[in-house]
């Protein structure tokens, strides 16, 4: 990229369960496209969006594509910040271990795998969201 390339902070806010609507899949597509343009991308999973990261999704029975494994590729696209809303997990009786572990590789530390997942309160999310140039909700 040229030196004067503009890099903006993009946050994608995922608020819906994965298969009942197309939002989750569409969000993922847009996220990967944005990251391919070398922008600074972060993802937030809040409300029913936390279900998008559930482990052991098996979609054979509903005849839909299981796209849950694609989240594991986010690290390869230099997406290192995944925010999970703590309150949303709690009101659904979920804990972090119910969700996929997502990592990125730190090339400055011999490609050590580091967790991308940040468990945050809504108060924290409010601050983080306010620091973004662009926020898109799905």
């Amino acid at each position, binding site marked *: 990229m040229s030196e004067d390339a503009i890099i903006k902070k993009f946050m994608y806010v995922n608020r*819906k*369960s*994965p*298969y*009942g*609507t197309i939002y989750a899949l569409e969000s993922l597509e847009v996220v990967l496209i944005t990251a391919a343009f070398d922008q600074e991308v972060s993802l937030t999973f809040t*409300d*029913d969006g936390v*279900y998008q990261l*559930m*482990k*052991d*999704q*098996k*979609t*054979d*029975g*509903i005849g*839909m594509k*299981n796209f*849950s494994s694609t989240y594991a590729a986010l690290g390869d696209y230099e997406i290192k910040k995944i925010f999970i809303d703590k309150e949303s997990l709690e*009101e*659904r*009786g979920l804990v972090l271990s*119910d969700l996929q572990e997502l990592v990125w590789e730190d090339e400055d530390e011999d490609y050590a795998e580091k967790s991308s997942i940040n468990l945050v309160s809504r108060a924290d999310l409010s601050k983080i969201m306010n620091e973004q140039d662009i926020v898109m909700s799905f």
Partner: protein
Amino acid sequence: MNMLHTVNKSPFENSSVTSCISMCAKDNSILFIEDAVISVMKATKFTEMIESSLKDFNMYALKPDLEARGLSLDNVIEGVKIVGYEEFVDLTTEHDSVQSWL
């Protein structure tokens, strides 16, 4: 009338589930499909509502929709029957009518 109610939206997303339960007549049946299967999981803020409604209604949840969302069958509230598509068809034929809550 022996009515089957189907609900397909998450209780966290809109009021379909709570409205259905509040208007459902005694001994009617409710089948949770698509995102509504979230309703029948233990330890959510809707668990108590579902548990206390089980004495009045027959409740069912569609297994393929639970599995697709990674929702463990072991975490389904006791008393809610887990059914497949074939039993879904049976339920629609066994009831006098079907009300689909959108």
